[in-house]
């Protein structure tokens, strides 16, 4: 049952992410490279979710066995945390700049005479 939920959830999330990326690409808010990267990423996630045996084939092929699985997930987790940190820092910088810009604009206005 849990496996079915994971599969449905993954497909739904991927559908939302890819369609959103496509809409942004059509609106010229996203480059074709970024659209392809996101599509490929989500297609890979869906494939692994639908056919988990792919992981076994890859591990067997690479010859690293079950221990390698933990290493891959560990590295994946570190990478995701790093990405979250990067996004957090960038978002904060953008918010800070936007706030300063709007405040400067507001005080450049002739507000002192508007009564």
């Amino acid at each position, binding site marked *: 049952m849990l496996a079915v939920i994971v599969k449905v959830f993954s497909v739904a999330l991927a559908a939302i992410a890819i369609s959103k990326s496509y809409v942004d690409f059509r609106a010229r808010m996203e480059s074709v490279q970024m659209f392809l990267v996101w599509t490929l990423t989500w297609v890979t996630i869906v494939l692994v979710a639908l056919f988990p045996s792919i992981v076994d084939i890859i591990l067997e092929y690479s010859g690293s066995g079950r221990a390698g699985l933990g290493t891959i997930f560990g590295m994946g987790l570190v990478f995701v945390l790093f990405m979250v940190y990067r996004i957090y820092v960038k978002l904060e910088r953008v*918010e800070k700049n*936007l*706030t300063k810009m*709007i*405040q400067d*604009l*507001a*005080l450049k*206005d002739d*507000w*002192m005479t*508007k*009564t």
Partner: protein
Amino acid sequence: MPAHNEAGVISSVISRIPSEIDGMSVTAVVVDDGSTDGTAEAARRSGALVVRHLTNLGVGAATLTGFRAARMLNADIIVTMDSDGQHDPEEISSLVHCLVEGQFDVVIGSRILSPEGMPLSRIGANLLLNAITFVVYGKVVSDSQSGFKAVSRDALGRMKLKSSGYEICSEFIGEIHRNNLSYKSVPVKALYTRYSQRKGQPFLNGINLILAMLTRLLRRV
């Protein structure tokens, strides 16, 4: 006065602000934080100077814009208050009196010292936020989340405030502590009208406030 979509009440709040306190003239400055209901126009019609943010930045950013505006006006004493009618404008005089006569750097209007009419849930939330403010900023005050405060120009000049959201109140307390400023809490009425309670502070704002303060704490570690 930071204001966001307060067109319904802002005129009545501004009209009750005294025009003079102890021989000092009073200028009402409203920072319209990207309102869409005509708050800026209503405030202007009532005689306030209005600084307008193009978009909503948050109460902290609006307060900081107000402080910059006060500096541009060469204000000697700066008073902040909510624009939703929760604070009684006639009590501005008692805050300013206390600041001048007691030679304090900051006077905080405390709802906890005069809690009549304050909902129990609000009292509990404020006490919890007082505790978190102490953990993050190292200072205990009776009402760390009060938006009704008076501060001298010199004291404000020493503060380094930067929060955009509701955490500005706690950061203000932290700056009192960091700069070793003298302060006093005086009781003020909390006017919880149906309007202010309806607008009020959604539960999510409280969660965001706690998260923002904990983030601040983590950054310092």
